[in-house]
């Protein structure tokens, strides 16, 4: 993860950079140390925590997270180092000399126990009424260290009001243990910086600028802080009760669309190893819960590709043929609502670079309450649309006032993977045991191009599969249609495809080298935007940005915990599913073709499609009243 030299992070929170030797076999490359009387050899500069992990010694951690820079504030990982008066935190201590470490002495155990006791004394609430019950790092530690009573008392009245102002993220600071993972996620990982520690001493708490409600600051709703919170202090705004009400209401026709990333991750909520998709099983489970129809968001992902791809070609034509200088190129993708709010706050003057295409979720809502209502002969007022998303920002997106082009609220509720799993469990269903079934018509199963939207680079890959073929009449020149330069978790990826032997309609693109950039995580988005500002993107045509590290599969609504390893496995599941499909190009999706034949008869980017499938953005800036 990118964490080097971000000037906004205090040096104390940046990792201690020890120059690690490239060749560990060279003299001084490794150091012999003793861990619990066992002699081991570790590379110079390894932290005690890493050294212990390598040697199968468990050191508990709380403020440490593999995605974030070190903090060393919870002090739970303290160990004894011979010759040092005080205990040392394993997560921060780089090994640069032959030290002797003891990880389980009476002093260490007592200190850890005391720290847990202290945290529990100020941790308001009881485990059985917490959504993180059985998935809480504090709870796990308390159990590990046999804390069976509140040695130093237990707070019985809440100190803070729960902040429910945001459509996406709910903050209950009564459960906060001040590990500051959320702070580091916000400023270090995402470079947003709307959370910081406020006040001092015992009054210290994590808050926003002037302690304003979250809805009134520059939070982009990405929810990455939720994924990294060790306790239940941060959670998504859960609409499952309203959804149950709609399901239980016989007058309502409740449809749900499911995005590919939750399907690739929801198994984790049922104790399955990361890396298994449960698409078919989920369809059956949702039907059994009582959803009237289950649709595939990939259908509108395909639709997005058609609209966004056409928009890109139109922009290129205007720029290259009509020499229209007002056209903004490169075109940025607009599928990630976290990224949209990020650019609205941080780069409001560049909103014209964004594709006007709505995200697949919103397109689905608009199509459901118009085309589907018409086809199924249901009053759109009686339709309730639910979207299963890996994302907390989708909750904010569906509540944007402009998202009502169907004449109704296009998408009524955004549901995260975690909340979906809870509903499935509540309905008495064990997901992995469900039979598989297909999505419902009229949208049916979608293409693999829509599926890979879930991973960073997926939108780009899907768009290229379609745009290249539209322009040249041939498939993209990559084996099995796998455009590998788009794949992987590198922060910013750049590549290009040359267009040759174009069909007549696109002769103006003959010989053009289409350059594209893929970035994920808003820290990388910042870098791309700074490049744009400096004019370094003048020869780039298309930029995909996803707000979350890893793309949607690492979204703020996905199962907790998260790490690069887990995200990689989810990506593998998604790419495997894509490769197993017959249909892998958006423009070949027969149901999408049908939509253009029957409903959007004037084609992509026409007036009607603009009304239903496109949107506009708000210049928010950083001053919010």
């Amino acid at each position: 993860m990118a964490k080097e030299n971000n000037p906004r992070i205090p040096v104390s929170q940046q990792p201690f950079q020890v120059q690690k030797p490239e060749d560990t076999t060279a003299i001084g490359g490794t150091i012999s140390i003793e861990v619990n009387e066992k002699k081991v050899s570790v590379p110079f500069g390894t932290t005690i925590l890493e050294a212990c992990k390598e040697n199968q010694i468990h050191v508990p951690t709380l403020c440490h997270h593999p995605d974030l820079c070190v903090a060393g504030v919870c002090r739970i990982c303290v160990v004894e180092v011979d010759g040092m008066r005080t205990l040392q935190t394993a997560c921060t201590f780089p090994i640069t000399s032959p030290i002797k470490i003891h990880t389980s002495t009476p002093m260490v155990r007592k200190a850890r126990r005391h720290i847990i006791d202290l945290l529990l004394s100020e941790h308001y609430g009881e485990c059985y009424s917490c959504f993180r019950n059985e998935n809480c790092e504090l709870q796990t530690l308390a159990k590990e260290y046999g804390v069976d009573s509140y040695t130093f008392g237990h707070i019985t009245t809440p100190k803070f009001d729960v902040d429910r102002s945001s459509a996406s993220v709910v903050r209950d600071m009564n459960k906060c243990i001040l590990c500051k993972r959320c702070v580091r996620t916000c400023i270090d990982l995402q470079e947003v910086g709307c959370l910081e520690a406020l006040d001092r001493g015992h009054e210290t708490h994590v808050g926003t600028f002037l302690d304003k409600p979250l809805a009134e600051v520059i939070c982009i709703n990405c929810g990455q802080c939720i994924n990294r919170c060790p306790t239940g202090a941060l959670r998504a705004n859960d609409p499952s009760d309203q959804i149950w009400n709609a399901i239980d209401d016989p007058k309502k026709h409740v449809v749900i669309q499911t995005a590919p990333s939750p399907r690739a991750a929801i198994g984790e909520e049922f104790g399955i190893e990361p890396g298994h998709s449960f698409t078919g099983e989920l369809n059956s489970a949702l039907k059994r819960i009582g959803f009237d129809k289950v649709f595939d968001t990939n259908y509108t992902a395909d639709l997005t590709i058609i609209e966004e791809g056409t928009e890109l070609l139109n922009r290129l034509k205007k720029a290259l043929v009509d020499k229209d200088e007002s056209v903004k190129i490169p075109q940025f993708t607009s599928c990630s609502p976290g990224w949209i709010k990020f650019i609205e706050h941080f780069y409001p003057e560049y909103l014209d670079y964004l594709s006007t295409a709505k995200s697949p979720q919103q397109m689905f809502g608009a199509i459901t309450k118009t085309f589907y209502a018409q086809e199924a002969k249901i009053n759109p007022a009686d339709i309730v649309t639910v979207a299963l998303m890996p994302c907390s920002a989708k909750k904010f997106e569906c509540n944007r006032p402009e998202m009502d082009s169907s004449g109704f609220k296009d998408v009524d509720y955004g549901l995260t993977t975690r909340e979906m799993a809870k509903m499935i469990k509540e309905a008495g269903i064990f997901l992995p045991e469900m039979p598989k079934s297909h999505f419902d018509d009229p949208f049916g199963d979608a293409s693999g191009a829509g599926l890979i939207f879930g991973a960073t680079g997926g939108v780009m890959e899907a768009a290229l599969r379609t745009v290249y073929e539209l322009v040249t009449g041939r498939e993209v020149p990559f084996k099995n249609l796998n455009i590998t330069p788009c794949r992987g978790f590198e922060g910013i990826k750049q590549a290009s495809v040359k267009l040759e032997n174009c069909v007549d309609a696109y002769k103006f693109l003959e010989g053009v080298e289409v350059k594209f950039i893929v970035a994920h995580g808003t820290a990388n988005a910042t870098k791309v935007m700074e490049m744009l500002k400096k004019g370094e993107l003048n020869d780039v045509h298309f930029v995909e940005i996803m707000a979350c590290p890893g793309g949607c599969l690492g979204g703020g609504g996905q199962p907790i915990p998260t790490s690069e390893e887990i995200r990689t496995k989810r990506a593998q599941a998604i790419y495997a599913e894509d490769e197993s499909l017959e249909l892998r190009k958006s423009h070949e999706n027969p149901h999408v073709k049908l939509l253009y034949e029957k409903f959007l008869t004037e084609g992509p980017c026409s007036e009607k499609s603009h009304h239903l499938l496109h949107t506009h953005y708000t210049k928010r800036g950083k001053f919010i009243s």
Partner: protein
Amino acid sequence: MENNLDNNKKRTGPVLFSKYTRGEGIKKALAMPREDVLFELKSSGLKGRGGAGFPTSTKWMLVAASTASKKFIVCNADEGEPGTFKDRVLLMEYPELVFDGMVIAGYTIGAKTGIVYLRGEYEYLLLQLEEYLMKMRDDNLLGKNILSKEGFDFDISIRLGSGAYVCGEETALIESLEGHRGEPRNRPPYPVNTGYLGFPTVVNNVETLASVPHIMQKGGDWFRLIGTDKSTGSKLLSISGDCEKPGVYEIPWGTTITELLQFVGAQNTKAVQVGGASGICIPKRNFDRHLAYEDIATGGSIIIFNESRDMLHVLQNFMEFFVEESCGQCTPCRIGNTKLLEGVKMIRSGEFTFSYINALKDLGKSMQVASKCGLGQSSPNAFISILENFKDEIFFHNGYGRK
């Protein structure tokens, strides 16, 4: 200030409160190679006067040996320990000692910039210190090619703190200098390696720097004659509390508390708090102990309590201070101090059990080893030492716990 006849200065000594002509130390140092300055400093045995007692020569040597492109010398003038007021006197009356010390440090370690982190409450000193620095620049004691020493450029700027006690901790001070929240850093890395803006930095107390010009002028051997074997030189003490002549005293290291109490005119003394709130409380039976790094180390704060004082009250005062002044970053300090304060209040109200108070004492010991910085590591000292040394008074004679 004018209402202090003698500016609170009560006893002069051979080192700090003695005659010194501005620039002499610099002249002497610049005439020597840097290694010799370090050698002189090493032979003097000077240790950090902020309280921790780290050998100054070692600190300087570590930075001098670094090949980094920039280095800094920071003067810690965030004098915030309760009961200490000696740095103010030095800065007001002997700025030449402090600033000459910084220049010598700059020369020795290879720094071009010195920064004084001045306590926010000392803002009234700012103008006169700035004026003094201007005069130094006029006389080429600061600026380019100082005293015609080719290539030695050095200047000093003054920055004001904002009143946080924890910013006296050197890494929190550096964070504050960088414009961040005043929170101590993880160590290692130490400031001598990764300090201000990530560059090697020496952070020295005002008094440490003020000792340097005398050492340069008179030599390390002279300095070693004063004090004890392991604690060389003399120390400024800020003495307050129940005595006739509170004020700033220069004493040689090794003085006993009994001697101290005699010349400040303290009577019926019950206890002496050495080292401020984060120090330890010495009961009467231990008054023969010496003030020295090897016995009772101190940054200079001495608070005297006579028989009329309620030691539990004293303890509560200290604990309230720590609850407020903890930076709130690490668990043991942020919550631990609150628990200790609660314990003190429980004793006052009589609603406590001895087993819980002992559990708190145990917690205090964990805080001493598990806290991130010196604040949390030393904040339980008062709790542990006062309850231990005055348990009869607190638990039985004063009637706490007999309700």
